[in-house]
């Protein structure tokens, strides 16, 4: 049974149709990478999965249960089974690193202070940052912030981890550290991962399966090797980083006017 299933999901914001009938099954233990141009609606898919956005039409299922119609209170319990790494980390500025990582544990667990400190240290060690518990998020570099955010995302040992642009804004070396961490989490915690990115090197490295979103629908679904063999013009253009004729024409028109 798939962990997550999206059936014919449609979503519009104002007059902009972002998703036009998205169907996908995400299998347990697999890391699925969603690629696509900026603004294609990749992050919107992630937000549908954790109920931050509800579909206009269609349905979202988690382990066979339909979740797009459940209330906020039920979602609050269900979300403890998910971890979410935000694009900019979304660490709480007013809390220390330790308090950030401890937040979901304090909120949902009944642990003693000592136990919480131990779990926080374990999670930070897992991302290679133990010992910085008392620092504030503003004192960290971009890469460290993402790793702390990842430690927070896995604090409750989730079944599914969603990564929203995990390597965006990082240099290639730091980006590779994050990629290695995603692989490590999959290996050690056996989590189901969904990664949204337009970094193809990262997609090829961490993905068991790659799906490409274009024009509100999936236009490719296959292994990283199959992506390189795909002949679809939209996929080829994205993989090769080539602007469309339409984009080029619009640039020429603007240049001439």
């Amino acid at each position, binding site marked *: 049974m798939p962990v997550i299933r999206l059936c014919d999901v449609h979503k519009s914001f104002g007059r902009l149709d972002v998703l036009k009938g998205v169907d996908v099954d995400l299998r347990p233990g697999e890391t699925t990478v969603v690629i696509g141009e900026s603004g294609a609606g990749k992050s919107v898919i992630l937000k549908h999965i954790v109920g931050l956005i509800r579909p206009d039409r269609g349905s979202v299922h988690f382990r066979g249960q339909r979740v797009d119609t459940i209330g906020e209170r039920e979602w609050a319990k269900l979300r403890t089974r998910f971890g979410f790494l935000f694009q900019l980390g979304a660490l*709480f500025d007013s809390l220390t690193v330790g308090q950030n990582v401890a937040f*979901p544990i304090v909120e949902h667990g009944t642990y003693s202070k000592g136990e919480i400190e131990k779990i926080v240290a374990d999670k930070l060690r897992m991302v290679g940052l133990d010992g910085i518990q008392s620092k504030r998020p503003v004192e960290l570099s971009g890469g460290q912030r993402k790793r702390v955010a990842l430690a927070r995302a896995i604090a409750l040992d989730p079944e599914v981890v969603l990564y929203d642009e995990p390597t965006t804004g990082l240099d290639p070396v730091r980006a590779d550290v994050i990629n290695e961490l995603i692989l490590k989490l999959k290996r050690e915690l056996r989590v189901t991962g969904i990664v949204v990115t337009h970094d193809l090197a990262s997609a090829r490295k961490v993905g068991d399966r790659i799906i490409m979103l274009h024009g509100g629908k999936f236009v490719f679904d296959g292994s990283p090797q199959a992506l390189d063999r795909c002949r679809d013009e939209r996929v080829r253009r994205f993989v090769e980083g080539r602007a469309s004729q339409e984009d080029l024409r619009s640039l020429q028109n603007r240049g001439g006017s």
Partner: protein
Amino acid sequence: MSMVAGVGAKTVQAVLAFGRFWSFGGSMLMWSAADLPRYRAWRRVMPQFYEVGNRTLPVILVTGMFVGLVLAVQAYDQLLSARLEEHMGVLINLTLVKELGPVLAGVMLAGRIGGALTAELGTMNVTEQLDAYRVMGADPIRHLVVPRFLACLLLTTLLTFFCDLMGSVSGWFIAVIVKHVPNGPYWYRTAEAIEFWDVGVGLVKSFLFGGAIGTISCYKGFYCKPGAEGVGKACTESFVASFIVILIIDFFVATFAMGLYKALYGFKPLL
């Protein structure tokens, strides 16, 4: 046809925003009531008490002081010409506790704290920190809005009390020390004219102003549009809306309190 569609779209947006505001307010009140007896919730409120009280007290004291000074300076010549200078305390203190104290303290709070709350929550919104609370199964209204709302609600009354006190002392200083109005009659007339009712009405007003400032400021930050422009615009809207709501509440509470007083005790002449 496009004009009709435009009006329709604006109406729908206004109705949705209205519903969203009341849903936000309802959720905030529900969590406030639920969290009041909980120790863990008060641990979130105490830092906000410090922020609201500590940041605003100096401004409030300065405001109260100058209101008292100006009232005394303006009133003295007029009352002296009618040989009513002993009544200066009545004019200064009654104006302070019933009207100027609560309203000016409310306006200062809306500017000083309301703007800061909107900017803080607005920034958290645009950096996805509010979504981070939600995906961790925590309600951001409970964790972020309720402590700020309670701090505004409870501390505005206390800050208004300090504003009144400072204004009263500075008014007395001008009247008695500078203008040599006799101290005994000054306080005797004041005590004769001002009742607990008057002080109570002022403090009830400030309590409501605090609630309005907390709700509006947090709501505007919570639902601000993306980007620096969105946060800036939300701060401006928050102050303007708080200011107008303060004036509206002031009018209705004053009218209601006056009617109730007349019904209970009859008309009270000040002179």
